[in-house]
């Protein structure tokens, strides 16, 4: 490798930095003001690239391409404004993580809408008119468009900087980032401000997507793939800081460029291909930055952020009626395999639903009572699944020890390691770090082909002996799920659980009465991860094979949807939310061709009708009715 090669890659990195900046900066601005983590940001970016494609191919020529970029930006901005007005405006007072569910529903709807309009073929756009050539730099040819892209990022940064520092709109954005209620009390219409901010952020996503058209084909996987990138840029740069977002994009892009430039190297006799690091580079950068500077490069420690959300109700132990109901449900579940004679699918679906219940309960444990919003819970599920699967395939263990020892141990080790870092952060930063660890596990599994089978995964992991019988395996799943749920429930109501909830509600006061905040959170993280590992192990033997899909960020998000569907504030929420989500997904996939959109719409209805989750809303209505009955008319 020569210095020239390194420099050339560094220049390439500048162009990538612009793309990465455009992916993240809109999200950062939206988050800064609205405190909503807009999961649909990648979807807006995806729309940008598709709309630009349509303009470039239907209108054609220089106007079609360059005009298309303007049209994409404006159209996606309008779509963003519409999402804010129709949906988000109604849920600013809902619990923060509930808003995630709503934006995730938008992801699903946009995904199928895109599929419906543009089809599922990858669409490669034309090259930029007037910039089809290449320029010779350092003895290598660099596309003119890449050189153009190098300057786009800094140009957008300057315009945004001017907007925020020099205009009243910008001042209102910065003021609202800190204290939106006060901005309202000074006579500013927050609803309009929020709509404009959403339009701005969405427009930037649309611009980013449209500019990417000559560099990569429009495809349907962009939405979720980009969310990770966008989060990383925002978190590394510091929430709400546009300069930080550019700096973060620059660092990540340059490190990736460096990895590519280094290529395969031999260090101390060990050969290692650095270009493999590009998949995890950004997440490693994020993990390092968050550990050293918990609020990102340019972010500042947030003081008290005034939110509109209603404080969470304490969880209550189930009353006699709920317990009776649970007993009946359990009895039905126990005899369910008997129905398989008439409906063979019953046990298969039952196993999936039970595993989902255990997965969701373990996630709920750290999210609800723990107050730590994990975005990477699939990591522990995957560690359990791969642990059990590899113990059988590579280690020659039989089913039970693999399931009861190796799966929880693998997840335990992962949760102990990652949790140690995660509990040093809080809020959205913690959420992003869990996401980063999840992606790191995924990348390792994906790339370590000799051990994990790479993208093919591990196959032929069926339960042996007695457990080969579906019904018996179902009962095992039922027994383990019930034990796991009861165990975590016991912990929630035990002194440790009280301490955990105290830490969630007010870490300072909890510390002042002698609770070791980080230790309690760390133990909770490990408990949840370990139980989740058992769910992963059960999953491996239920499916007979494991693929990296088991650890994908999509599964982490599924888990969040399950928990929020059931409601955060009750212990029984995830037990219902997990199976309900599985059932919805299962039936929708079978019945409806556009199942994502259907699922998204179902979620949106639930969000708007049950703003506290299904179980939470039922509890809320019961309370409301009781209150009304008590009060004379």
């Amino acid at each position, binding site marked *: 490798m020569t210095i020239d090669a390194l420099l050339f890659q560094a220049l390439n990195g500048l162009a990538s930095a612009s793309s990465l900046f455009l992916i993240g900066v809109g999200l950062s601005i939206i988050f800064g003001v609205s405190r909503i983590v807009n999961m649909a940001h990648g979807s807006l970016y995806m729309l940008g690239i598709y709309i630009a494609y349509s303009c470039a191919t239907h209108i054609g020529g220089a106007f079609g391409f360059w005009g298309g970029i303007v049209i994409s930006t404006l159209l996606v901005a309008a779509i963003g404004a519409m999402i804010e007005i129709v949906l988000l405006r109604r849920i600013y007072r809902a619990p923060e993580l509930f808003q995630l569910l709503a934006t995730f529903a938008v992801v699903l709807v946009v995904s199928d809408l895109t599929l419906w309009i543009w089809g599922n073929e990858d669409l490669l756009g034309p090259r930029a008119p007037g910039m089809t050539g290449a320029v010779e730099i350092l003895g290598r040819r660099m596309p003119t468009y890449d050189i153009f892209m190098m300057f786009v990022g800094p140009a957008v940064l300057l315009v945004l900087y001017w907007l925020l520092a020099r205009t*009243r709109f910008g001042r209102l954005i910065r003021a609202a980032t800190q204290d939106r209620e006060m901005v*309202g009390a000074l006579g500013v219409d927050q609803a309009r401000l929020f709509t404009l901010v959403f339009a701005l952020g969405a427009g930037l996503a649309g611009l980013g997507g449209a500019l990417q058209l000559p560099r990569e084909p429009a495809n349907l996987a962009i939405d979720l793939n980009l969310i990770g990138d966008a989060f990383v840029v925002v978190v590394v740069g510091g929430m709400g800081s546009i300069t930080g977002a550019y700096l973060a994009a620059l660092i990540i892009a340059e490190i990736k460029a460096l990895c590519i430039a280094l290529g395969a190297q031999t260090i101390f006799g060990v050969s290692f291909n650095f270009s493999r690091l590009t998949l995890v580079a950004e997440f490693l950068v994020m993990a390092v930055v968050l550990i050293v500077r918990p609020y990102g490069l340019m972010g500042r420690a947030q003081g008290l952020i005034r939110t509109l959300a209603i404080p969470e109700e304490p969880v209550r132990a189930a009353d006699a009626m709920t317990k009776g109901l649970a007993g009946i449900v359990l009895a039905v579940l126990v005899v369910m395999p008997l129905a398989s004679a008439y409906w063979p699918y019953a046990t298969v679906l039952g196993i999936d639903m039970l595993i989902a219940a255990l997965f969701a309960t373990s996630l709920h444990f750290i999210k609800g009572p723990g107050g730590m919003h994990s975005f990477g819970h699939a990591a522990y599920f995957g560690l359990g699944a791969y642990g059990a699967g590899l113990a059988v395939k590579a280690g020659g263990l039989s089913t039970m020890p693999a399931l009861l020892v190796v799966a929880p141990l693998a997840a335990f080790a992962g949760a102990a390691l990652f949790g140690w870092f995660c509990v040093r952060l809080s809020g959205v930063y913690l959420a992003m770090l869990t996401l980063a660890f999840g992606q790191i596990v995924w990348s390792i599994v994906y790339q370590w082909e000799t051990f994990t089978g790479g993208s093919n995964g591990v196959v032929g992991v069926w339960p042996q002996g007695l457990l080969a019988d579906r019904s018996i395996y179902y009962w095992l799943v039922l027994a383990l799920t019930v034990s796991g749920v009861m165990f975590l429930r016991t912990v929630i109501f035990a002194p440790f659980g009280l301490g955990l909830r105290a830490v969630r509600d007010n870490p300072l006061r909890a510390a002042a009465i002698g609770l070791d905040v980080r230790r309690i959170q760390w133990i909770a993280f490990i408990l949840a991860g370990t139980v989740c590992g058992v769910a992963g192990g059960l999953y491996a033997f239920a499916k007979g094979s494991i693929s990296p899909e088991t650890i994908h960020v999509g599964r982490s998000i599924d888990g969040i949807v399950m928990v929020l569907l059931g409601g955060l504030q009750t212990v029984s929420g995830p037990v219902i939310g997990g199976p309900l989500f599985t059932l919805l997904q299962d039936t929708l996939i079978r019945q409806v061709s556009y199942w994502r959109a259907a699922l998204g719409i179902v979620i949106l209805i639930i969000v708007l009708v049950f703003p506290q989750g299904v179980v939470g809303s039922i509890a809320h209505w019961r309370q409301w009715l009781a209150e009304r009955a008590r009060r004379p008319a």
Partner: protein
Amino acid sequence: MSTSVLSVDNLNAWYGAAHILFDVSLNIGRGEVVALMGRNGAGKSTTLKAIMGLIERRSGAVTFEGRDISRLDPFRVARLGLGYVPEDRRIFTELTVNENLDVGRQPSRTWSDGNPAPVWTEERLFALFPNLGAMPDRPGGQMSGGEQQMLTVARTLMGNPLLVLLDEPSEGVAPVIVEQMVNTIVALKQEGLSILLSEQNIHFAEAVCDRAYVLEKGHIRWQGEMQALLADTETQRALLTI
């Protein structure tokens, strides 16, 4: 009493399930400076917030310049000319003095009888608060408590209010700033503004207020002329002194 600018009838307010204000009624005339007194936790700040619409769960009638504002959003209340200065200042710490003032800016307005209300500009406010004029580009986060207190008042005045809800301006600031606050309130009164001042310190209230209401546990327990409250040591001991 002159024409009423703000009248509050049977205002109740809750934080979640906790009932804080019980049938609070009060009245402020044009150009009047009225004290809302009481100990910590009596409900002074809650009353101001409830008038402003900042408390979700509330009931009762609030009429401002002849308009019912009891169900309006805070920003609509502010746009009618009701200014709010919060107790904890709530300066935008990332914004400079000038930028903080800009956020508060609203068009000039007239009283319900058509006469123009006082119009505030940066120049006039810097004349009123010379300290602020000396640091127009300083970020709010790098100012002393007293300077922040002046800025929060000035920021609200940028909205050209007809009436200002002023929440404990003397709390936690140096005596010299308290004196300056007294002068400010007197100057605002001379401009014809009405002020509802939440206050614990009777000496501060005495210096600027015409009338007073005294709150205890969310109920109005006493109301009358400021002079009468000063003379009534029994009420003072029962409701105010610690």
